[in-house]
């Protein structure tokens, strides 16, 4: 196989070769002056010809050359060296680092590569290797702790659940707060429809070269309409000129459950303290000694295995470079009957069409099939049924030997419709499936008519065919006892088309002027066809073919959006000392009425590299400041109202619950950012500090609205909010010797938000998808944005709880802000240690403060399975509080009260503050230990490199949280399209799994 490939590509390469007479073969090793190590992939080229070679894993090369010719030795980031070929058969070369190009190149908006040195705003880069060290299937999870200012929270430990990323605080109360996702210059789908996985998780981490995070509006300003929440720019690997490299890897993961919520195991089912078999709640008498008590939460989760295999081929000539990769992942889950089957295939090539023109094209096919046993709702609630299942039943007992449901409790008159059954039945028999076929194609034509001018045109499409299906097997208690199948099929595509003209020229020696002019078109379309079929006539075929006509409902959807933009970016640099930049972009969008559909987004920024003034070679110091104002359009089809057919008697049409609003205006975001970058000790200590202040004005929300308006849901400009914060990223290499290197990065950040203004008379706005009895995720005017609203106890001015004459605390009926779900402070601490052939990396993640609304506990409290009920029920307790006297004074409460059912149900359960917990955590996100077999051993095995890897993900978390894992986000990023950020809401969250993995890396 390897030979064939070699031959194939060698033939391609050979076509451009000219063979000379009098050839000799020159060999040698290229090493770096920095560490003395061989340089892999350095280019050796015969001057004036197309003949070239690359160094291999040992830094050695060999090339056929004629005497007297010149060899050029070059490598990225190194100064090139030329040697004239004489008689000697060996030329060893030592390359020195190029201080100039040591400067980090980062990818910025529109895929423009810029030197970080002159950058006027904050951009953070995460390398593909650091991302992969986390061993996360979903790349957003892999970024946790690696970006200062990114709040990343997954919805739970199941492969089909989404992860939310918010840069610099949330910008809207309903809808998507997430940054724009760009892969190789085109916008890609990151939706998480039906609460399934966010679609960027389809991208294979193995294919990623690096990720640039444009956190602020200024950095993303050229994206205009999409820039308000920042942007994540993903660059995939590309082919490199030189020898063919074939790499493969295989990893196996073992996953077990992480931190679980606790339950009481003292009281059995019933109400009012007496045993009642018919009751589903656990407010009965104590278990008798002879009654089994099942720890169902632990019994439910299992140990699962995941396999992940990858293969990639990479190589090419000067004229044609290619990268081909394939990946397969079969992921199990600690949740039974849950698995993921994913195939990735990427082919990417760059062809030098002429000396002035090049074409890069790529095609990425992804198949991602996920089956999940636990299906939540738009408000989460994944394991609520497990948390509340009475402990007297074994959760694993759910079916009879003949496959029919085993009902834990059924009343004699009942056919099963109202019976009680283990949640395991639903998990095993009624899974949800999400099957995705995705095709991302991308082409970029680049033309350099003049050496200071580049014209490029990019056309790309991200096409996703998604099938979402839920089944209810006949015999399942509840609404669909006769069975039901729901399926929605959607084909969505994002078509991006961008034209850019880039001009860069030096003037008067000291000035460099760069100008970008461009235009883009961005089209989105999603066409869907779905059905809902009820009452199966044939009970074991789950298809609309076997239901009666009136049990079938068909729905077609079609959404479209078109946007156009023109933009320009002018930056002027003086001597690497001073850079000033201005950008402007005008957007046109179809989602707003004609009078509001176009808007302008400018940005102004500058940087001052003050280290250039004093001894520039020994250190580096830069100040930067920027201001940007960007606009954002509305969701699709929110400007007018439609009618909808109903299936009631007589049929007919009703007003769609979502009303149109033709007066919608674009949402605006303005952001000011100031920062500094410092670098000392030969770049072994780097510091990046940023302060920002972001205002979102006229933010567009799509919440439930007052019904007297005539609608249930409406989109409108709802108010303004502010986020401000600091981000610090410190990178240091404390130790660096030939054998040993320790590099460490600390990312720390803090964001503070404030709701500045609400439309109309709104003071507190509750999020539709997170209203959980005593507490709701909500935003209150003049308070933090990601708040919690609920009731508290009545308190005296000094803060003492008021207790009534019977000894029970008194509830204050007025709801108020009782929590802030945003952490007060975050630290991610990444360490990388290399010792000879060993490398070790691990990431600590610290979170300080921030509240969780523990609705899981609330839920368990209502049915009597909560841990605290076991501890406190029916005990006497003297509440720490004060009792009001007739004269208006207060005395300390001395009276003891019984903590009975009525107390828990009508008092404790009703008070929001009882379910809000301020939490901290210290956790290890991953530890990865790698070992490369010595070269000699590897070659004996017939490979260039063989690496072994042991890794663990989420091995432990230290936290004061009373529930399961404190990383919670009940409804995911944009629940049902209209939800808000639910980070910090624990509503039956599936705790994160911990896993251990073993991996093998081979390079042929």
């Amino acid at each position, binding site marked *: 196989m390897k030979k064939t490939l070699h031959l194939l590509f060698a033939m391609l390469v050979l076509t451009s070769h000219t063979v000379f007479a009098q050839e000799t073969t020159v060999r040698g090793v290229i090493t770096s002056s920095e560490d003395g190590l061989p340089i892999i992939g350095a280019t050796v080229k015969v001057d004036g010809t197309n003949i070239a070679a690359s160094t291999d894993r040992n830094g050695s090369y060999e090339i056929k050359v004629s005497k007297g010719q010149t060899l050029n030795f070059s490598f990225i980031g190194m100064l090139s060296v030329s040697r004239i070929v004489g008689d000697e058969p060996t030329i060893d070369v030592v390359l020195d680092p190029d201080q100039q190009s040591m400067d980090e190149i980062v990818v910025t908006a529109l895929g423009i590569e810029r030197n970080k040195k002159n950058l006027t705003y904050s951009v953070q880069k995460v390398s593909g290797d650091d991302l992969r060290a986390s061993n996360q299937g979903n790349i957003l999870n892999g970024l946790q702790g690696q970006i200062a200012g990114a709040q990343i929270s997954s919805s739970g430990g199941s492969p089909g659940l989404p992860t939310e990323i918010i840069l610099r605080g949330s910008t809207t109360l309903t809808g998507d707060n997430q940054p724009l996702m760009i892969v190789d210059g085109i916008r890609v789908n990151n939706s998480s429809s039906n609460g399934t996985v966010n679609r960027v998780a389809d991208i294979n981490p193995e294919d990623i070269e690096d990720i640039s995070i444009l956190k602020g509006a200024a950095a993303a300003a050229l994206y205009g309409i999409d820039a308000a929440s920042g942007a994540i720019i993903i660059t995939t690997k590309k082919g490199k000129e030189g020898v063919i490299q074939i790499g493969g890897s295989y990893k196996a993961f073992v996953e077990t459950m992480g931190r679980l919520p606790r339950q009481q195991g003292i009281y059995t089912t019933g109400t009012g303290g007496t045993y009642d078999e018919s*009751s589903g709640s656990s407010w009965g008498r104590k278990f008798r000694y002879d009654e089994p008590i099942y720890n169902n939460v632990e019994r439910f989760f299992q140990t699962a295995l995941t396999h992940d295999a990858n293969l990639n081929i990479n190589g090419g000539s000067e004229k044609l470079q290619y990268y081909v990769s394939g990946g397969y992942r079969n992921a199990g889950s600690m949740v039974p009957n849950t698995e993921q089957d994913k195939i990735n295939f990427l082919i990417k090539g760059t062809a030098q069409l002429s000396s002035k023109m090049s074409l890069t094209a790529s095609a990425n096919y992804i198949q991602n099939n996920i089956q999940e046993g636990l299906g939540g709702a738009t408000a989460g609630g994944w394991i609520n049924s497990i948390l509340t299942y009475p402990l007297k039943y074994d959760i694993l007992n759910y079916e009879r030997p003949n496959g029919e449901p085993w009902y834990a409790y059924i009343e004699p008159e009942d056919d099963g419709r109202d019976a009680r059954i283990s949640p395991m039945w639903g998990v095993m028999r009624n899974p949800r499936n999400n099957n995705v076929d995705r095709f991302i194609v991308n082409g970029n034509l680049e033309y350099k008519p003049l050496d200071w001018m580049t014209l490029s045109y990019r056309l790309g499409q991200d096409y996703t065919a998604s099938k979402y299906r839920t089944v209810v097997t006949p015999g399942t208690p509840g609404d669909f006892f006769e069975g039901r199948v729901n399926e929605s099929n959607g084909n969505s595509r994002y078509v991006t088309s961008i034209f850019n003209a880039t001009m860069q020229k030096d003037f008067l020696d000291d000035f460099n002027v760069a100008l970008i002019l461009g235009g883009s*078109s961005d089209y989105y379309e999603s066409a869907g066809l779905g059905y809902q079929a009820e009452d199966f006539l044939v009970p074991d075929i789950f298809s609309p073919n076997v239901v009666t006509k009136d049990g079938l409902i068909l729905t077609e959807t079609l959404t479209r959006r078109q946007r156009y933009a023109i933009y320009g970016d002018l930056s002027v640099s003086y001597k690497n000392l001073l850079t000033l930049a201005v950008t402007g972009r005008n957007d046109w969008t179809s989602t707003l009425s004609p009078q509001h559909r176009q808007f302008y987004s400018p940005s102004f920024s500058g940087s001052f590299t003050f280290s250039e003034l004093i001894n520039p070679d020994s250190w580096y110091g830069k100040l930067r400041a920027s201001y940007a104002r960007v606009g954002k359009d509305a969701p699709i089809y929110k400007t007018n109202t*439609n*009618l909808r057919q109903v299936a009631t008697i007589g*049929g007919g049409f009703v007003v769609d619950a979502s009303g149109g609003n033709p007066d919608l205006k674009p949402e605006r975001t303005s952001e000011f950012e100031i920062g500094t970058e410092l670098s000392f000790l030969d770049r072994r200590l780097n510091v990046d500090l940023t302060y920002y202040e972001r205002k979102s004005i006229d933010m567009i929300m799509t919440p439930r609205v007052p019904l007297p308006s005539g609608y249930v849901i409406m989109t409108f400009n709802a108010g303004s909010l502010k986020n401000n914060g600091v981000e610090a990223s410190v990178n240091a290499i404390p130790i660096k010797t030939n054998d040993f290197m320790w590099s460490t990065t600390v990312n720390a950040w803090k964001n503070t938000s404030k709701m500045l203004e609400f439309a109309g008379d709104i003071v507190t706005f509750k999020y*539709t998808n997170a209203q959980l009895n005593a507490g709701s995720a909500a935003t209150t005017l003049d308070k933090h944005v990601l708040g919690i609203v609920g009731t508290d106890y009545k308190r005296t001015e000094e803060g003492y709880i008021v207790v009534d004459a019977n000894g029970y605390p008194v509830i204050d009926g007025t709801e108020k802000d009782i929590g802030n779900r945003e952490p007060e402070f975050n630290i991610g601490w990444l360490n990388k240690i290399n010792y000879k052939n060993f490398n070790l990396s691990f990431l600590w993640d610290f979170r300080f403060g921030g509240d969780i609304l523990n609705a899981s506990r609330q839920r368990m409290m209502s049915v009597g399975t909560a841990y605290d009920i076991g501890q406190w029920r029916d005990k006497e307790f003297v509440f720490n509080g004060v009792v009001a006297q007739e004269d208006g004074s207060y005395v300390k409460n001395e009276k003891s009260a019984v903590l009975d059912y009525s107390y828990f149900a009508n008092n404790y359960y009703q008070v929001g503050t009882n379910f809000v917990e301020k939490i901290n955590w210290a956790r290890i996100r991953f530890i990865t230990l790698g070992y490369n077999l010595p070269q000699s051993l590897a070659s004996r095995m017939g490979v260039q490199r063989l690496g072994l890897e042991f890794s663990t993900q989420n091995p432990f978390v230290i936290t004061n949280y009373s529930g399961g894992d404190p990383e919670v986000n009940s409804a995911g990023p944009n629940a049902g399209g209209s939800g808000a950020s639910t980070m910090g809401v624990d509503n039956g969250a599936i705790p994160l799994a911990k896993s251990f993995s073993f991996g093998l890396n081979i390079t042929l």
Partner: protein
Amino acid sequence: MKRTLKTLSILLAVLFVTSCNDLDLNYNPVQPVTVPSNQRLPAIQANLAYSLYSQARYTSFHSYYLTTRTGNSNAQTDTWNYNNITRMGAWRWHYFDVGSNIAGPAGMMLRAQEDGDNNYIGVGKILLAFSFLGATDVFGDMPFDEAYNGSFNPIYDSQEKIYENVERLLDEGINELQNVGESARSMNALSDVIYAGDYGKWISFAEAVRARLKLHTANFTNGYANLLTTVNTALGGFEDAMFVYPESSVSTWEKNLWGESRPSPEWQFADIRNDLLNTLPTDVLMKALTIDEATQQFDPRLYKLTTPGANNKYLGAQMSIGLNSANTNLPTGTTYQDFANLYNGYWTADNSPYPYMIKEELYFIKAEAAFYLNDMETALAAYKQGIEHNLRRLGVEEGQIINFMGSIRVVQNADDLEISDIMMQKWIALYLQAESWVDVRRYGYGTHAYPDMYYPRFALAEWGGRYIQRFVYDPQTEYVYNPKEIARLGAGARDWIFTPLWWVEKSNLKTP
């Protein structure tokens, strides 16, 4: 070079054009924006049945027909605590599903006006009036003038003003129906599920709604004589206004919401689904339907309104206590099987009709009006008509009807007639209807009208012995968008629902 540039620019232009679209595509091409009125009315009528149900779901507990099986378990029905609910379904059903489809910014009347279908406008106004009357009787003050004008913080009009507007809508509706235009689109059984386009019946229905409205205020407006005229007018051409469900259907959309399959056609129904399986008949209901407890002789309607429980016994549970063992006065070992099964009665089967208004109500309105006018003979006659009509409706056999009408349960002599006789018989006839809660509140839950009523054991101590008087406004919207009006009304208080409505406040019937 030039050629390359030219080729390139053409290529680019072609590519760009292929990815270009018009910006005017922000309309949904697969959903209509408007349809003729005859395609709107049936859905409005279906929604009205749902809307009435959404009120009755809770009022049937508050008017003591039903109580939960476990007792002390449901916050709203057992403890009268509405403070932690997320949504109040009845608010949405009235304003959006019924009201907005008639008179909202995309309602039926808009197109009816354009098309000259003033018959649909007439029926629309009558239905809107009826829906508003039912809604204000559970909510009290609510937006009327500023409803459907796009405001998110409309002024709440007083209930008194809403009553005036309901009457005005009835007048306007009747007027339209008396002058149906030549060009008006025909209304028939396909487009009018209730009366198949019989305008006369709609006019009588409008008068019946007016009679219901006048009854609520007659006691303090000295309006009984006027009411008697209205109710007689209504009775002249009245036919039951019922939303009829098919005999059998598998579609969850085609079932009565009280039905045994607990239909839940849309997710919005979750908070108002019936839970009759875990619900028991109260002792108040059982006493009302018992002729002689010792001989286990019951009102024949008991067997029509309910079906037999497994043990063929007919116990009654105390309000809010149910089977809650520590507090019940029921015999030891009582289970839910010792009670009547609430499903599959005349009003509680999947295929039961859903009543907007039934003729019995008019007879009892007439009886009550005549009673206070001291016309006891008329009162007795109307009272008896009401009972007999109800027995007949429920399908009681003729022999049994004669027996029952002659039993001690039915007052035979005009001089013996007491208000409690009228009110209790009306209460049985209007089994599960929200209108019963209006009567109960008008009489202040008093035993002079409802002899077997008592204060529920598990109503929270903090209510201080007060009876529930109203629903809360929808917490998810009204309390968020309209805090000023909520504050003005005092609706933010934990005990807001114990504040009497206007016609309760004014009522002089609360004490004997």
